[in-house]
């Protein structure tokens, strides 16, 4: 266990984030003159800096003490999470200034959440992964209940926190069993252990696998482990909802994909069906219940559950193709979702309302926001010109390639269902009569953020090749090992 690579500089982005977090807190403490939204811009700069720094390791492939792997996969997600943090912070600035206390801590927690997410994507080992996961979760627990005096925020936080603890206990128990049967916590080693004959310790192995699926399923909100999602989303302060929707899912799937690709791929044929069924159940429930929602946050929560179902399709059809398709869809989805949430945030900043009826006539009062929201929603529904269509198409095709045509069918059917409730929002905005005719004031910063995201939606929708190239290079590395073991996908 000697000659470990302890080159700390590999962790520069994380150090930057942590340091920046501390700085923000201190700024908040000692520089009273600094406006709370300006504080946000400082924090955003931190996220951006970390993102840029992490670009250093493009096409690098090394590891830190066998725990943290710095390769394209990591870099991809470092950049991804960094940008998520960046946009989330920018989107929150005005909201935090007007509605929340403790701005410094708020931003610091977002930055720390990004650190946790990076850890989840980077770690090649269960302990590190678990700890990072807890770092992310803790930050989110706090952020969700950040509106101290808002009962709903409080309740959401409580449910999220307690269930989170419960599920991480389950996850740990599973990890324990896996450790028990394989004697290792490194993904690669576990994978190697499982390639052989496992019949002697199947019992513990599959119980452990089931528990791990449950634990990760909770983090990414798969049915039936999803129930915290709507409440947490609805309770949380809006920007936090956006953050949770984006980063916890993204990080969850980063880990999910890496773990299953590197460690559990040999057992693919055993667990594929379970994931497939989970995926189906998730997308069905998420989309059908979403029809019934009248609160836009809750609706987006359920729609995100539905999206998790689609993403799980990628896990079920696990193969290098499906992996890259999954990440591609993940990126597209997160961009779109952020765009949608930014619209909701802007509207909330104006009116403090979040019921769908209250969006009536938005097209009159703020055409740009209405248009962007429509774009985002149609993209979520998987309509062409927008990100959703291309990414979904490729993801589901990947599933079909793996003999999961039925699952792809369910997925398509459900994204058709989703179109219905997205259209109801569009109807409100374009057909509803606004209570007053006046235009809303223009928040340039948010509009800038929104424009960028919408541009991203169109870019992914109209020319995904570059992004797809990057993604594929990113995901290639996590399959390299198992390809050596010759256990990729089906024969």
């Amino acid at each position, binding site marked *: *266990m000697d000659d*470990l690579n*302890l080159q700390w500089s590999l*962790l520069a982005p994380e150090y930057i984030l*942590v340091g920046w977090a501390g700085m923000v*807190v201190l700024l908040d403490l000692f520089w009273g003159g600094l406006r709370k939204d300006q504080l946000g811009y400082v924090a955003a700069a931190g996220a951006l800096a970390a993102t840029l720094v992490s670009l250093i390791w493009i096409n690098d492939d090394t590891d*830190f*003490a*066998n*725990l*943290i792997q710095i390769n394209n996969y990591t870099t991809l997600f470092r950049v991804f999470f960094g940008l998520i943090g960046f946009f989330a912070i920018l989107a929150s600035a005005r909201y935090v200034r007007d509605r929340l*206390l*403790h701005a410094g*801590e708020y931003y*610091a*927690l977002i930055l*720390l959440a990004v*650190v*946790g997410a990076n*850890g989840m994507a980077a*770690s090649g080992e269960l*302990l*590190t992964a678990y*700890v*990072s996961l*807890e*770092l992310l979760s*803790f*930050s989110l*627990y*706090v952020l969700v*209940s*950040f509106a*101290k*005096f808002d009962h709903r925020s409080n309740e959401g*936080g409580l449910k999220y926190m307690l269930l989170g603890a419960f599920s991480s206990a389950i996850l740990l*128990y599973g990890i324990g*069993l896996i450790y*028990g*049967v394989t*004697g290792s916590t490194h993904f690669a080693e576990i994978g190697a252990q499982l390639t052989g004959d496992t019949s*002697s*310790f*199947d*019992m*513990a*192995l599959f*119980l452990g696998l089931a528990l791990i699926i449950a634990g990760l399923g909770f983090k990414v909100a798969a049915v039936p482990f999803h129930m915290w999602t709507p409440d947490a989303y609805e309770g949380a302060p809006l920007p936090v909802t956006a953050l949770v929707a984006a980063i916890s899912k993204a990080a969850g799937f980063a880990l999910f994909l890496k773990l299953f690709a590197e460690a559990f791929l040999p057992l693919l044929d055993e667990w594929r069906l379970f994931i497939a069924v989970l995926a189906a159940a998730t997308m069905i429930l998420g989309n059908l219940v979403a029809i019934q929602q009248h609160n836009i946050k809750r609706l987006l929560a359920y729609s995100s559950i539905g999206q998790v179902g689609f993403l799980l399709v990628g896990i079920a059809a696990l193969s290098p193709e499906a992996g890259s398709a999954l990440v591609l869809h993940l990126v597209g989805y997160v961009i779109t979702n952020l765009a949608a949430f930014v619209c909701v945030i802007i509207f909330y900043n104006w009116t403090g309302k979040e019921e769908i009826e209250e969006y009536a006539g938005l097209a009159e009062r703020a055409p740009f926001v209405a248009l962007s929201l429509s774009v985002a929603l149609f993209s979520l529904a998987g309509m062409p010109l927008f990100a959703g269509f291309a990414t979904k198409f490729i993801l589901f095709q990947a599933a079909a390639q793996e003999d999961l045509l039925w699952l792809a069918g369910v997925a398509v059917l459900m994204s058709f269902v989703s179109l219905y409730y997205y259209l109801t929002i569009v109807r409100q905005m374009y057909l509803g009569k606004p209570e007053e005719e006046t235009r809303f004031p223009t928040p340039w910063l948010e509009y800038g953020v929104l424009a960028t995201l919408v541009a991203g939606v169109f870019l992914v929708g109209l020319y995904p090749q570059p992004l797809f190239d990057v993604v594929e290079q990113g995901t290639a590395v996590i399959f390299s090992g198992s390809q050596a073991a010759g256990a990729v996908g089906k024969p």
Partner: protein
Amino acid sequence: MTYEEGIFYVVAVVTVAGALGVVLARSVVHAALFLILALLSVAAVFILLSAEFLAIVQVLIYGGAVTILVLFAMMLTRVRDLPQPSDGAQRPFAALAAGAFLGISVLAAVATDWPGETEKITVVTLNELGEALFRTWAIPFEIASLVLLVALIGGIILARSEEGE
């Protein structure tokens, strides 16, 4: 049956008893006390597993910090005034689920033939442990510290009362 086994069974019974107390006691305070019992006996189990260091950690962190914290919380939330019973409506389902899970996990524990030595314990010295902890496992260690930091911040922000409250 060897005396070690005897000790084990005693400890195990105490542990389970404590656990039962935690989940069954009508009064929250009793539950808390049972928890302490359970935690201490788990520490004993650790010793039986010849992981003394962990036993110490266990006693310090749990027996000390956690339970104190819990008791403080109970005082602050005046849970004594809470209406009894402290059990929810879905108790039977809970029993069912827990029972089922118990069955599965015990089955898994017993039916699996664990690779390697299942009878003999090899003692791990404290220095090896420290060595590994601060060298090999430095990263999780650091991240864990961040976790604690986050918990700290969260605790402060959420627990402390703002002006006007």
